């Protein structure tokens, strides 16, 4: 095994040193004060439990607090700033760094770095810690890793100044990822805000924000009055000819992602397709069942396809722009849920419910402008989403090459 990573900071060339985790840090567990003694609780000392760990890198306030007396009367111990909290059971390997001193319950084996270990450096190696914990844990009711076992973990480390540089690098990278994610959330919020203002509120006939030059009231019509609805079917799987030489796309609920469909999972043969209706490009699909969270899910065909019985198809018509339609349906998805029968294992809506749905829409030209606006917004959001993914992949690649 080589002792140097593939990528390093300039000026560092020494071999990394083989150590055990317990040699360069202290492994500390915790405890729980008696819950039937009020004097132990609601004090000024942070006291963490495993459920709080995993979402944030730095933690500076626990849900529950204990008092000085609670600290004395339990196995909990004060852990210093920079400690890497590490959950040791019921989900081994969640980590966070203490930004303010605190303590934990007994579900942790936390790493208190010594002089030779940098907090963020060891935090960046969460995946290794987790793998080690899961591999070397024991227990029948649930797996748990002991402090003694954790201390034996072999680890290759460079000198402290290189550790600090590596730690600072990943801290900055994590921050950049978090910021790009924040930007993604804000863009999604912006879209939601524009949907709220560019579609009329309940009972209103015009939206708050419109493109210049449009002043007419919006129409309200039932989908069933505008469209001829259609539901497909599932070709008999026991008949092999239905799936031999499958060239016709066949859309199911799982193919819908509330956006244009550019790929679907299954095709069917010409024999099967002849019994179904071939739907044209720009048809909007609505899922009627497949689980409560699937109801009202949409898709927009970008190529001709057939569908199964779980979907209702709205073929393109002159008066409604398809991208406008899918945007409105996505915005109002929660209205389907009130129609879904609620006490069954698999609630559903019916084609009749789709037909009775009241659609709000303006003149076609305004629809096209609105549809184009939201498509553009969707494209930008998609680009931002891709950027976040790329940064996360970047981090993964650098973790592989900057550590040994």
């Amino acid at each position, binding site marked *: 095994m080589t002792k140097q990573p593939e*990528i390093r900071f300039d000026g560092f060339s020494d071999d990394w040193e083989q150590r055990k985790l317990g040699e360069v840090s202290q492994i500390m567990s915790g405890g729980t004060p008696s819950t039937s003694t009020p004097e132990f609780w609601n004090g000024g000392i942070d006291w963490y439990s495993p459920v709080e760990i995993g979402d944030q890198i730095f933690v500076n306030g626990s849900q529950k607090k204990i008092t000085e007396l609670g600290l004395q009367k339990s196995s909990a111990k004060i852990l210093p700033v920079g400690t890497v909290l590490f959950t040791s059971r019921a989900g081994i390997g969640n980590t966070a760094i203490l930004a303010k001193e605190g303590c934990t319950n007994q579900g942790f084996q936390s790493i208190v770095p010594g002089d030779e270990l940098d907090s963020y450096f060891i935090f960046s190696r969460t995946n290794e810690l987790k793998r080690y914990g899961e591999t070397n844990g024991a227990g029948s009711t649930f797996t748990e890793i002991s402090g003694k076992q954790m201390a034996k973990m072999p680890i290759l480390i460079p000198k402290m100044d290189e550790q600090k540089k590596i730690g600072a690098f990943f801290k900055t990278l994590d921050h*950049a990822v978090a910021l790009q994610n924040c930007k993604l959330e804000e863009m999604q919020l912006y879209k939601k*805000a524009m949907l709220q203002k560019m579609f009329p509120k309940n009972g209103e006939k015009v939206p708050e924000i419109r493109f210049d030059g449009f002043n007419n009231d919006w129409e309200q019509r039932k989908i069933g009055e505008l469209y001829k609805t259609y539901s497909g079917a599932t070709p008999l799987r026991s008949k092999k000819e239905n799936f031999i030489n499958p060239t016709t796309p066949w859309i199911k609920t799982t193919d819908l992602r509330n956006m244009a469909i550019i790929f679907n999972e299954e095709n069917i043969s010409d024999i099967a397709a002849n019994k179904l209706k071939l739907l044209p490009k720009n048809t909007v699909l609505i899922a009627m069942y497949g689980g409560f969270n699937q109801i009202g899910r949409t898709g927009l065909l970008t190529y001709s396809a057939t569908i199964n019985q779980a979907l209702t198809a709205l073929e393109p018509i002159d008066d409604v722009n398809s991208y406008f339609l899918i945007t409105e349906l996505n915005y109002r998805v929660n209205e389907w849920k*009130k129609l*879904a029968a*609620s006490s069954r294992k698999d609630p559903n809506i019916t084609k009749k419910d789709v037909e009775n749905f009241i659609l709000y829409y303006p003149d076609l030209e305004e629809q096209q402008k609105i549809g184009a606006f939201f498509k553009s917004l969707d494209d930008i959001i998609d680009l931002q989403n891709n950027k976040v993914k790329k940064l996360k992949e970047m981090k993964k690649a650098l973790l592989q*090459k900057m550590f040994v």
Partner: protein
Amino acid sequence: MSQVATTTSKTLSQALWNSADILRSKMDANEYKTYLLSLVFYKYLSDKMLLKASELLESDTDDLAQAQRNFEEAFADEELRDELINAVKEDVSYVIEPKLTFTHLVDMVNKGKFQLEDLAQGFREIEQSSEIFENLFEDVDLYSKKLGPNSSKQNQTISALMKELATLDIAHNGDMLGDAYEYLIGEFAADSGKKAGEFYTPQPVSQLMTKIVMQGKENQKGFSVYDPTMGSGSLMLNAKKYSNEPGTIGYFGQELNTSTFNLARMNMILHGVDIENQHLNNADTLDGDWPTDEPTNFEAVLMNPPYSAKWSAEKGFLDDPRFSSYGVLAPKSKADFAFLLHGFYHLKDTGTMAIVLPHGVLFRGAAEGKIRQALLDQGAIDTVIGLPANIFFNTSIPTTIIILKKNRSSRDVFFIDASNDFEKAKTQNNLTPEHIEKILETYIKRENIEKYAHLASFEEIVENDFNLNIPRYVDTFEEEEPINLTELSNSMRATNKAIVQAETELYDMMKELTANNDETAQQLADLMSLLQVGE
């Protein structure tokens, strides 16, 4: 013998429940409830008779031991005995011989001379003394192996339970014991789990249903209440609490399970219902109709039937007057509408019916859809009240109370969605008095309340294809908070600025990185180019 004087209803309930510890280790709740409730009932009858006898002998006492002695002396007097027996019977309709009273039997327990046969004899004497008590104790098997492996152990178990019960004063305040009995039945239902929980409707739901069906009739004499699936009878006994003429209420109930039927009979007696006001039947409500002798129609019909029960659905029922006007029968595997139509058939034109059913009856199609439509067409369905999930012992599904009336002037339906109004408890949810009052007040006012209640016109119901699923009419959906665009813009600008700063910092750090081979160096360069694309 020790006496615990002046127990409150609550401590009495708790003491009775604790008495069950003797049996709890030997059998499950569905089994030991028969022993406990029957012995409590026997003690009640015995104590009541003893105190009455003393009163009649003009030797009033609160001391059961003294009362026992008085009774024994009088019984020993040849001349006095017959007169005393007649006088006691006239008052309480039964007599228990001095040697068979609960008090005497406990004395025998304490002296080590108790025989199970004596208790069995006492049960038989009660059963034979009046039709009101006929077969009342037939479920109590004093010689069951579950009480112990042999007759000696069986004797010990019953003896221990009797000693425990002997410490309780339960004769003076009948209502207090009735409440305690109610508490016990509730605890047994909770303990029984799925199997036996159907015999009891939790008090909050019972109260709500009873208040609704009694609305405006609190002062009516001769009020009649019918429960075709009465279980322990607790549901219809609520009428006693809310009527200002409780002594005149007629109780009509039917129960399929014989054990539960007997429990209901005891419950009636303990709540002080006169024999002439009790009309209970042990039979299958979904078989032949009952009652068929007058009266057959009632002011109130209350029901909490077993949900989605199987029934025969034989074609012959299409000619049964209860079902014939609907053209279809409830399906074999879901008897909900069969129970509903039975109850509705027995409702007076001026009456109100309240039935608890699963939500499925509100929207299931096929035969049930046809029945629902027929009911709606005649304006029979007055109100639909959605209850929280998990408020019953034997099922966690959400349930609904449906209120039906005849000869309504309108065909509208009032919807109340109380499914989010509950108090979270350990294993199930509870309706508090506040929740009940809110539902009741809303029901009375019959006005729209946003996210809670909606008065739907018949046209609206037709538009929904006679589907009564509550969310269609009461929208509890929380509107999204409007987003402030200015705040959002400022936040986005700040984020973009922070991104530029962080990525610049990151880029500068990456310039200091060196790869130890060409391939990795190229990959590193590719990664860095990500950060130069800008936003």
